[in-house]
């Protein structure tokens, strides 16, 4: 394996990161550069379809063993548990109210698909491949954190309980368990698994070849969106910003611990750390709006999009890979 610092630099100067920086800078300078909403959504669908399909096809090749089950179980547990930790920290150090702290916590327990995708690109830069099941781990980690977050937001508030429990309606349950991104990710994964490498071959010119290029355009959009969030941020204290930078490291630490327990290799350990350390901004926000309306999107979306995502993209990922290399002893 190459020197991690030169790799990190390579990563930072990859087109992907540079397009993110371009979008970020353009928005800070208030350029009118914009990616149409429908196109941003389409690219998100594409990335989820592609990563899901490729993961499933990979798994078909590799087969399932006990580590597979262990990884999936670990992912579910981590997604349930990390919000509790995040919540405790937020309440102790940042002075957020219960609802806001719970909502933020839910985002950090869940995962960011794009951060994961960027990490897999970093992997391929290092010349490593990874176990396709990691995509399934990502998929199962999306939802449990939402349940934890809602529980955190509601516990103790017996008074408002009646009204709120009523609000745990079909809409919300659907939003939580049948969120479009989860359904597409798992669906594409299963399809990739069924059709295997032969299926992948037929659609590789769509899901493999242009993947990195689409990611560039998508990250341009993410840069625009993240900086716009940052510009509009009015509710972000210094302590919250610190949380947004420290929590990914703490989440990643949980991932490393689980990885050591499961005896994972470098690639899988690093990816698990990336999942634990990343914060959702696709699936979780809509659920939180429905379930915890008192919590302010100005806080949780800004933290996830404008602080933690850029941190992970630029510094977090190379760091997690370097640490995973050391810990997995490869």
């Amino acid at each position, binding site marked *: 394996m190459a020197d991690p610092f030169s790799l990190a630099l390579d990563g930072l100067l990859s087109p992907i990161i540079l397009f993110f920086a371009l979008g970020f800078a353009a928005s800070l300078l208030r350029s009118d550069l*914009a*990616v*149409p*909403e429908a196109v*941003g*959504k389409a690219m*998100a669908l594409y990335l989820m379809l592609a990563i899901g399909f490729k993961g499933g096809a990979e798994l078909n090749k590799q087969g399932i063993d006990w580590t597979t089950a262990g990884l999936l179980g670990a992912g579910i547990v981590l997604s349930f548990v990390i919000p509790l930790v995040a919540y405790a920290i937020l309440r102790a150090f940042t002075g957020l109210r219960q609802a806001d702290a719970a909502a933020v916590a839910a985002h950090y327990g869940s995962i960011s698909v794009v951060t994961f995708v960027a990490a897999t690109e970093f992997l391929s830069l290092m010349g490593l491949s990874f176990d396709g099941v990691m995509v399934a781990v990502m998929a199962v980690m999306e939802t449990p954190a939402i349940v934890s977050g809602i529980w955190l937001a509601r516990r103790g508030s017996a008074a408002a309980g009646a009204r709120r429990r009523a609000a745990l*309606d079909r*809409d919300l349950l659907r*939003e939580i368990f049948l969120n479009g991104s989860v359904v597409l990710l798992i669906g594409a994964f299963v399809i990739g698994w069924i059709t295997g490498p032969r299926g992948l071959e037929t659609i590789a010119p769509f899901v493999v070849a242009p993947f990195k290029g689409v990611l560039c355009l998508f990250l341009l*959009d*993410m840069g*625009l*969106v993240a900086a*716009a*969030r940052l510009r*509009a941020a*009015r509710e972000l204290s210094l302590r919250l910003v610190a949380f947004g930078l420290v929590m990914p490291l703490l989440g990643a630490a949980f991932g490393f611990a689980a990885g050591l327990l499961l005896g994972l290799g470098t690639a899988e350990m690093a990816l698990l750390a990336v999942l634990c350390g990343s914060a959702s*901004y*696709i*699936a979780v*926000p*809509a659920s*939180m*709006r*429905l379930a915890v*309306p*008192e919590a*302010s*999107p*100005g806080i949780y*979306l800004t933290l996830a*999009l404008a602080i933690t995502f850029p941190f992970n993209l630029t510094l977090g990922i190379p760091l997690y890979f370097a640490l995973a290399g050391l810990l997995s002893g490869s």
Partner: protein
Amino acid sequence: METHLRKRLDIIVEAPLQRRVTEVLEAKGVRGYTVLRCLAGKGHGGVWQEGEISSAGAMRMIVSIMPETQARQVLEELQSLLGDYAAIATLSDVEVLRGEHF
């Protein structure tokens, strides 16, 4: 040409709430509604703009024509539903041709 007086109810509400609002309309027997997409806006919760990857932050405008008494009932119901959410509702007078349609 005879026309009838009705009320137009305009509701601007976060996209994730759309289904809950239309369920209230249906529960109250409203005969129809139309949903429009909003592009950007500002309110007590600050500025927002279409285009984030999650549609949690987007807003919808729901327009519905109905008789006045129904409109007031719907408004009352909405007030308790939308309490914590980013949402506004307005009521205005309109004339329609086919009274039985609304």
